[in-house]
């Protein structure tokens, strides 16, 4: 069996002491920032990106991946104990998790969240191992027209899955695409939209945009609220769930894992969408939907399993197609490029150690998380008592260091500040930044593939509809748009996101 052979290669890499150490650093950091509201995996990975230059590629990716799925664990701890989602993907965990804590059942809620996440992590690791090779095989046959159509599909999916108005989300994507092409045009060498500023000739760094839109903008929004945080259950007793708890939640864990794995693969998907979807699903299938919001353990088990599964399977399009499905994956691609590795389907064949090592390390990391986190919950809770007025200047210092170190240039920091203001305005106007970031990353890639496809077809735009794979993506995009435009679905879509 080839898959076992591959997993053994991966295992050898993943248990290498150095890699275990970086995996450990990654998951601990991930849990830490997951626990702390106001700083997420995007800003953290962006901060560490320049530093990974000095690491070997495998260790770097293992650590960064650990931050992403580690954050899913940490986020749920805060949601359950303090009713504040440490991570946006744990928003729904607050609903029932906090209620459980108020009923004195914080322990079982935390344990089920951790065990469900662990189970989901194991399954998602296997899903990646099984699904990635055939996908990469197909992707090797992709030409420019297929890539272009795939990106169109990805961007449309991202807008459909964003909350709020669909038109605004599409506008944000296009705005992102436009900002993405600032810099030197690779085909003609013309400087576009650089306004004679030399620093802009290489374009705006994606990390800088992400840190501004997600980092400083978020801090500014947080400072509007009064600094008031009550830690509810400082003492967590009875960590172990009862037999009844396990009986109630195993099916929810299975459903959450399945749904999360599927939604994670979709472009624009990932942990956030998976958790919202799973909560809605649990409420639907439950015989006692009235218990939801009042401490139903299924309402913790389902979304928590789903967000971890989704976080991991969102690596599939990144690893096999070289296309990021969300902002975190875009940063992973950035990490690969820093190491001089061109992302795409060839990575699996050319760097099996990297590919399989990363996958198996996710399983190792999940194991560490479940073993370490349950006993360490007390420590994480204590961290939450650190007031925000100490946290936010610290976060700003680390972000500024990260951005400045990219090229030792004050201009980058200025751009981050500008995007921070822009991000704040977007929050106020209810324009989601996530689709914009995705557009920003894909801008140059899309233009390049469009140009190539049109050149090959001698200017015939029908090329996107005559090749079968490309046609498939285009049809799928059209179907998605039509579905969302239907009034019934539109209402449903709004409901899902109003849950918070």
């Amino acid at each position, binding site marked *: 069996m080839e898959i076992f052979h591959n997993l053994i290669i991966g295992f050898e890499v993943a248990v290498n002491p150095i890699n275990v150490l970086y995996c450990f650093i990654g998951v601990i950091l991930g849990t830490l920032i997951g626990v702390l509201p106001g700083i997420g995996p995007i800003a953290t990975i962006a901060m560490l990106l320049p530093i990974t230059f*000095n690491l070997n590629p495998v260790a770097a990716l293992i650590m960064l991946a650990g931050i992403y799925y580690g954050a899913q664990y940490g986020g749920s701890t805060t949601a359950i104990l303090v009713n504040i989602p440490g991570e946006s993907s744990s928003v729904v965990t607050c609903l029932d998790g906090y209620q459980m804590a108020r009923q004195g059942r914080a322990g079982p809620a935390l344990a089920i969240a951790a065990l469900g996440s662990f189970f989901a992590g194991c399954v998602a690791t296997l899903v990646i191992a099984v699904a990635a090779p055939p996908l990469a095989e197909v992707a090797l046959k992709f030409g420019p027209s297929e890539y272009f159509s795939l990106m169109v599909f990805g961007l449309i999916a991202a807008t459909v899955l964003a909350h709020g108005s669909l038109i605004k989300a599409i506008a944000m994507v296009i*705005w992102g695409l436009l900002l993405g092409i600032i810099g030197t045009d690779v*085909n003609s060498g013309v400087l576009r939209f650089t306004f004679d500023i030399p620093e802009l000739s290489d374009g705006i760094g994606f990390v800088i945009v992400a840190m501004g839109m997600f980092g*400083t903008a978020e801090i*500014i929004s947080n400072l509007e609220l009064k600094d008031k945080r009550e830690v509810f259950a400082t003492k967590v007793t009875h960590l172990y769930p009862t037999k009844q708890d396990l009986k109630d939640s195993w099916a929810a864990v299975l459903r959450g894992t399945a749904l999360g794995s599927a939604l994670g693969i979709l472009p624009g998907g990932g942990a956030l969408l998976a958790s919202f979807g799973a909560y809605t699903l649990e409420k639907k299938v439950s015989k006692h939907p009235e218990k939801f919001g009042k401490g139903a353990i299924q309402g913790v088990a389902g979304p928590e399993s789903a967000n971890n599964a989704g976080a991991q399977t969102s690596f599939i399009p990144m690893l096999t197609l070289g296309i990021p499905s969300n902002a975190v994956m875009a940063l992973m691609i950035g990490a690969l490029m820093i190491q001089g590795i061109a992302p795409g389907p060839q990575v699996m064949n050319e760097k099996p150690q990297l590919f399989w090592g990363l996958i198996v390390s996710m399983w190792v990391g999940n194991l560490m998380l479940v073993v370490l986190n349950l006993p360490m919950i007390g420590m994480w809770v204590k961290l939450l008592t650190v007031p925000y007025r*100490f946290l936010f200047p610290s976060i700003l*210092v680390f972000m500024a260091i990260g951005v400045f170190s990219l090229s030792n*240039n004050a201009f980058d920091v200025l751009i981050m500040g500008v995007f921070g203001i822009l991000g704040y305005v977007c929050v106020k106007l209810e*324009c989601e930044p996530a689709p914009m970031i995705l557009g920003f990353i894909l801008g140059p890639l899309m233009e390049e593939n469009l140009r190539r496809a049109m050149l090959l077809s001698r200017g015939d735009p029908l090329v996107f509809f005559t090749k079968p794979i490309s046609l498939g993506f285009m049809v799928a995009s059209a179907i998605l748009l039509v579905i969302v435009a239907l009034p019934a679905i539109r209402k449903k879509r709004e409901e899902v996101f109003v849950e918070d």
Partner: protein
Amino acid sequence: MKIKSPKDFWSGIMFAGFGLFFMLWSLEHYQMGTAVRMGPGYFPAVLGGLLTVLGLIVLAGGLAVQGPAVPQFHFRPLLFISVGVVLYGYLMKPLGLVGATAALVYVSAYGGHEFKWKEVTILYVILFVFSWLVFVKGLTLPFPIWPAPFE
């Protein structure tokens, strides 16, 4: 004309404004080329046009359909956080890590709810020492530590 949904109205203005700018600028300054050989202006001009149209649709919606008001802007954090961050970048070379960190910590902390000199000073010292040891010593980032004349 009455603005019924200010959020949509202003979003529409923002999108249409940026779209129009990108479109006109590309039409003015870059070669369009043809569909077979696209020039550098082709892609941004088309996208800019598209963004303008979408912006106008959102704007029209803001005039037609009732919607929520734009929540109040809080200028204090907005101003102090942004200025603090930018100061960090521009003070790094002349004043070194010690000065840049001070500017960022004091200015941004002033944008928060309460500002106590003592607390912020302790925080500043911790953050400066931590950045020095971890980022400059440990990860060997080439930042100057002290102001330029003392380096």
